[in-house]
């Protein structure tokens, strides 16, 4: 186990390193001069150069990269060019919102999807199965803004059941917050259900067909027991991994949904940072999304290996 963890950590940190490089130099391709961005069109060139010098944005890229990355891991993310506030506060706030939404969406979709997937697998190739998989598939592939708009229209404006903007007023109770978050979360549920259910179905079918399941049946175990003890235990493993791979998207990829529901999350933060050429904000935000992704996938791997003795011991022995 220990070695397994170390190995994964090692890989993750390499990936992280590459990620920082990609993010930093990726951001460099955006046009725009930092000093000018800050001082605006009327400041004279001298002042701009001076500021660039103070900010170090006139130094060679490698030096800049080094400064950025070392500051970053020292917890100093610098100031936003556009808002002149510490990037960390902006990201902190956005991340909090994103996490809320993501968590809520997960809580709704994961059990639902797993249930759907398992049922589909048990009823494999029967109508129930086709219905679940095909609806799932069809919903999964429709862009967020299509589903989102429809939901706003129906539940928000026509039926007036739910708020159309996702961000509850400060200090409102958890329940109220959830009420506000419901529509965007629902959009995500619609988006993710098919995907997760599909994986679960595949995993379940695989272990339904496995010899050990046959063994269990031939032991004379009742069907329910076979499913519970022998099938699910192995079939849900892949689901974990998949769910983990969605976190990146959920934390940073919800540009559209956050715009539709005027929700101040990471997606929109990055989006505006990109259009405003707010480099420090952009770089750190993207990097953090990446890191969160790496961490969750790492955790997923660990969880996976914990639930899967083959891996756990293969690594240990």
């Amino acid at each position, binding site marked *: 186990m220990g070695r397994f963890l170390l190995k994964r950590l090692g890989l993750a940190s390499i990936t992280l390193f590459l990620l920082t490089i990609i993010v930093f130099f990726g951001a460099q391709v955006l046009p725009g001069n930092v000093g000018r961005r800050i001082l*605006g069109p009327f400041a004279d060139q001298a002042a701009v150069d001076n500021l660039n010098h103070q900010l170090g944005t006139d130094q060679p890229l490698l030096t800049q990269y080094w400064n950025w990355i070392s500051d970053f891991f020292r917890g100093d993310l610098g100031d936003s060019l556009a808002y002149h506030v510490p990037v960390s506060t902006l990201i902190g706030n956005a991340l909090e919102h994103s996490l809320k939404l993501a968590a809520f969406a997960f809580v709704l979709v994961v059990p639902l999807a797993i249930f759907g997937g398992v049922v589909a697998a048990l009823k494999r190739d029967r109508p129930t199965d086709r219905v679940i998989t095909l609806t799932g598939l069809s919903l999964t592939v429709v862009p967020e803004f299509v589903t989102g708009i429809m939901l706003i229209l129906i539940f928000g404006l026509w039926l007036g059941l739910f708020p159309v903007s996702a961000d509850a007023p400060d200090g409102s109770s958890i329940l109220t917050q959830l009420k506000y978050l419901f529509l965007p979360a629902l959009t995500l549920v619609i988006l993710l259900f098919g995907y997760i259910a599909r994986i679960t179905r595949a995993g379940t079918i695989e272990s339904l067909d496995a010899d050990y399941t046959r063994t269990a049946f031939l032991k004379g175990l009742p069907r329910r027991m076979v499913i519970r003890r022998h099938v699910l235990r192995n079939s849900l493993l892949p689901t974990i991994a998949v769910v983990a791979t969605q976190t990146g998207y959920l934390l940073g990829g919800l540009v559209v949904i956050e715009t539709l529901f*005027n929700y101040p999350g990471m997606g929109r933060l990055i989006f505006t940072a990109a259009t405003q050429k707010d480099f420090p904000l952009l770089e750190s935000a993207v990097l953090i999304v990446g890191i969160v992704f790496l961490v969750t996938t790492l955790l997923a791997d660990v969880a996976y290996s914990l639930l899967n003795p083959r891996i756990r011991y293969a690594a240990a022995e």
Partner: protein
Amino acid sequence: GGGGATTEGGTIATGAVKPGGTVRVAIIQPTTAPNPLLVQDEGGAGLLGSTGEFLSFSNSKLVLEPRIAESWSPNADGTEWTFKIRQGVKFHSGATLTANDVVQTLEKLIDPKHGSANAQSALGGVLSPGNTSAPDDATVVFKLDAANGNFPTLVSSANYNAIIIPADLDPADWGKTFEGTGPFKLEKFTTKVGASFVRFDGYWGDKANPDRMELKFYDDEAPMVNGIKGGEVDFVEHFSVSGGKALLDDPNVQVIAIRTATHRQIHMRNDKDPFTDKRVRQAIAYSIDRDALVQGLWEGKADVGNDSPFAPVYPATDTSIEQRKQDIDKAKQLLSDAGKTNFTVELDTWNGFEIPDLAQLVKQYAAQIGVTLNLKITDAGTYYGDGVFGKSRWLDSVMGITDYGHRPVPNVYLTASLSGDPKVGVWNSAHFKNPQYDDLVKQYVAALDLDSQRKVASQIQTLLLDETPIVFPYFYNFLSAAVPKLKNAVSAATGQFDLSKAGFTS
């Protein structure tokens, strides 16, 4: 028009209201930190105005209401203005405002090294650093570079940067406290999310009626509209006809429409082929059906433009000058005279407000006279770039559409975006250079009384109409919306809004 109750003029339905309450306001997302010097956008202006006060407030009739200044007067030739500062005005911190605070605020505004883009555009070439003085705590004297009849407007709320802040406050830190003298004071500000304000009991005038005022920032218009329809906000500070059509047609939303000089400029590089020939520029202008634009894009809530910044709303505007109308044949004629038929030009602009629509319509109109326009529509950041010549599509493109906010006097439009003097014409995207024009503008600016202003204005209008460096298709109304039970909310076309009298009917 729509089914909604639409009030012309700055205030929605007035009447008796319950004391107290919380007014929830939707404003467009500020694009920068709240810094009195650097704010250049409507959202930012709204923030400044929410706690700050100006020497005077330019109301929807473009009349200046005294605020921090009790009164003002020019010397004989209009080169020097003296403002009487109200006494006993308190900052939210409790400190008392003195003339020195006013002096320092304005010095900072005009000092290039602070780079207050917008203030510069208004005061550049008007007031130079060091020429503002406070003989005593109640008086401020401005020595102008040249005579200027509209100076008080240039330092009023019309110049949204010009809120008076304590002399010793670094504008960069203003965002921390929102220090000002207005009827509301800051409770909480969260960048990119919103802000809330409470009544300032130390206010010099009538105390604010609402207990609280909550601002919510929106990146996009649709959620804003949905917000008020979904009952999540009481007051939408500003919406566009295109984005807010739903509100215009909604019987239980009251709409405020203010006639303004807010407009779009379709610039053509006077120094670049094919627009070096003014006949080509005129042809483009003639191809455009302005009435269709006003009806189609603005539901009639706009004034037709006549290719000069003199909007009908300005008292000085000469409305007798013949209105340019669509005339395809004439346009074609002009082109063939110029020997420039069937050419292709790239039309640069950005995807905000109704601009893309305008661009597409212009493209269509141009097509009718055999001119092909390829639209290059990017995000604002890309279009404006660094906002300086050589680093900005806005200022470098051969043809482009640019949005201009409302100004209570046309001065900025006349100078910044048309002056041939590089120090003044910093937004001269048409690269229009015309000594005679520059001279006329000087006269206009100097003119102290309305009649003399009218005379010059008329000449400028005629000149621009002939030269057509820029097409001004329309000047559209500033629209705000409120829920029916909200009364006495005031908004100004420059992005400020005054809710100190506002409240709800039971």
